[in-house]
C-alpha cells in the first residue's frame, strides 16, 4: 500500500483498530487479519471470500 493509499484508508483502519481495542499496528496484523495470511494464502481464496461476503450482504443489510 503506497503512502497515499494508506492515508486514504487511515480513518477506516483506525476505526477497525479502535473497535478491536488493539494496539496501533499495521492493518494486516490487526485481530483476525493476522490469520488471513495463513488462512487465505491464495489469491483466489481471498477474492472468493469477498464475493461470498458481498453476496451475503444483500439480505442482511437491506442493500
Amino acid at each position, binding site marked *: 500500500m503506497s503512502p497515499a493509499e494508506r492515508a486514504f*484508508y487511515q480513518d477506516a483502519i483506525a476505526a477497525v483498530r479502535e473497535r478491536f481495542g488493539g494496539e496501533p499496528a499495521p*492493518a494486516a496484523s490487526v485481530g483476525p487479519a493476522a490469520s488471513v495470511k495463513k488462512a487465505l494464502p491464495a489469491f483466489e481464496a481471498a477474492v472468493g471470500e469477498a464475493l461470498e461476503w458481498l453476496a451475503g450482504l444483500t439480505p442482511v443489510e437491506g442493500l
Partner: protein
Amino acid sequence: MTLDLGNYDGARRFLEESLRLSRENGDVMGIASALNHLGQVANCLGDYAAAHARSEESLAIKREVGDTITWMGPLVNLALASTRLGDRGTASARLIECLELVWDSGERRLGARALEACAMLAVSIEDDESAARFFGAAGSLREAIG
C-alpha cells in the same frame, strides 16, 4: 507518480491537463484514463461526489471502447465513492462486478484495491472482523506482488 507521493492537488492539475489534451486530440481511451485517475484523486481529497461522477464517466467510456480489464479501476473508485456517500447497494454491485473481473483476469494489483474497497464497505456497516480480514488479505496480496 505524483498521486503515489500523496500530492493530490499536483496530481489533479496534471490529470486535468491530460484530460484537456485527450479531449482536444479525440483520444477516447486517454479521456477515460484521465477521468479514472481524477476519480481516484477526488476520493483521496474527500470529494466523493466528484469521484463518483468522474468514475462513472470513465466507466461508461471504457464499457463502450475498452477491454473489460480496463473497467476494474473505475469500478473500484465508484465503489469507494459510493460507500462514502452511503450508497452501499451501488458499492456492493460495483465490487461484485469488479471482483468477478479480477477472478477472470487474475489481475492482483487491482484485486488488492478491490479487497481494500470491500474492507471500507465492511467498516461502513461496522463489520470489523470482515474489514480486518479484507485489509489483511489485501496486504498479503501486495506483499506477494512486491
